């Protein structure tokens, strides 16, 4: 009796479908990736175990470079104008409307108040932490961060404001301390520090309570 012959099947699989899927996913990831915009103020942040992602809305970001220069930037444009308006009045800057408009277009502020007009004259690609003097904070008598924070506190009164401090690893403590003093004097007691994520060391009490899913200590 002859056995029916089983036809030998080829073991190669059609890869076309898999290739399609791979490249579809690839193009999705490429398109959704936000590349970090090259920052004018270069700051290397320290790392911490904090696991909350830094907020991106209603942000007032104060960067401290390693030379102790402070820079301030904010995302909301109308609030930015209001803050400048307030500063214009309280500090008697005598900015004209045209000045105000050009100053409000700046992405960040990195000069003493009196020189803000000069910052607008510098081309955008040359505005960085090397060319600009920074907001004076190290001098306790002329801590202009106080004026900025006073204006910000009055403009943001009643709405959420996320104060972020982004300090460089190697910046000296007094700069940070004076920024904190400026917050405190304006009764802004809540702020956040931008850090890089870091894993919690094993065996510590935070590690244990994370395992238990216990109460978070950050809040």
């Amino acid at each position, binding site marked *: 009796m002859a056995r029916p012959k089983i036809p030998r099947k080829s073991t*190669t699989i*059609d*890869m*076309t479908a*898999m*290739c399609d899927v*791979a*490249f579809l*996913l*690839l193009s999705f*990831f*490429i398109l959704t*990736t936000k590349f*970090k915009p090259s920052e004018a103020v270069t700051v290397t*942040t*320290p*790392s*911490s*175990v*904090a*696991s*909350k*992602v*830094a*907020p991106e809305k209603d942000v007032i970001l104060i960067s*401290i470079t390693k030379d102790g220069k402070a820079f301030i930037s904010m995302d909301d444009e109308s609030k930015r104008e209001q803050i400048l308006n307030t500063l214009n009045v309280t500090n008697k800057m005598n900015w004209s409307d045209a000045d105000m408009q050009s100053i409000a277009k700046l992405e960040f502020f990195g000069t003493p108040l009196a020189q803000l007009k000069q910052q607008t004259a510098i081309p955008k690609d040359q505005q960085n932490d090397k060319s600009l003097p920074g907001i004076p904070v190290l001098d306790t008598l002329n801590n202009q961060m106080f004026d900025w924070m006073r204006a910000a506190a009055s403009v943001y009164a009643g709405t959420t404001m996320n104060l*972020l401090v982004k*300090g*460089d*690893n*190697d*910046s*000296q*403590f007094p*700069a*940070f*301390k004076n920024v*904190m003093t400026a*917050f*405190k004097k304006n*009764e802004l*007691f*809540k*702020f*956040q*520090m*931008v*850090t*890089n*994520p*870091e894993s*919690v*060391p094993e065996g*510590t*009490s*935070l590690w244990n*309570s994370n395992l238990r899913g216990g109460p978070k*200590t*950050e*809040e």
Partner: protein
Amino acid sequence: MAEMDTSSGGGHKKGPGVKKSKKLSTRVDLTPMVDLGFLLITFFIFTTTMSSPTAMKLFMPKDADNPEDQNKAKESGALTIMLGKDNNVFYYEGILDPAGANFKSSNFKEIRDVIINKKKTTNPEDFVVVIKPNEESKYKNVIDILDEMAINEVKRYAMVDIAESENQLVKVSEGGAPAAPAAN
């Protein structure tokens, strides 16, 4: 799908001297291409999720103008940590001895054990850590020590300006102590 019809149409017979050209398959092996695709996908997945910065929260107390209104920390439960230059850490428990006998030197690796020990041996109600960075300490040191508070779940801590006598002690000790390497 990725094939073209290569079979000759009409079955037209060529002359005896003409050789029939061999049929070549147009099917391409896509395996390396799939490999490459997935390699790039993994690359993008890893680079997107890792770079989001985190923020640690800090609530500051209001400065009491009147010294009598200030919170008094029980000296038995207090641990004072001072930060100096070159990642040096100093600490003492309770009140600083005038001669500096309980003034001890440490670094960022060992300070965790100091905090854990102190936390274990004191009443949780009285336990408070006082952080005093001096003007030569770096921002990173301050963040590291605040992080240490989070890691060890210290509920009460305060950042206070360093007293002149303590700063002197820190500077004297730094003169002798070799520079400690950074913790992380």
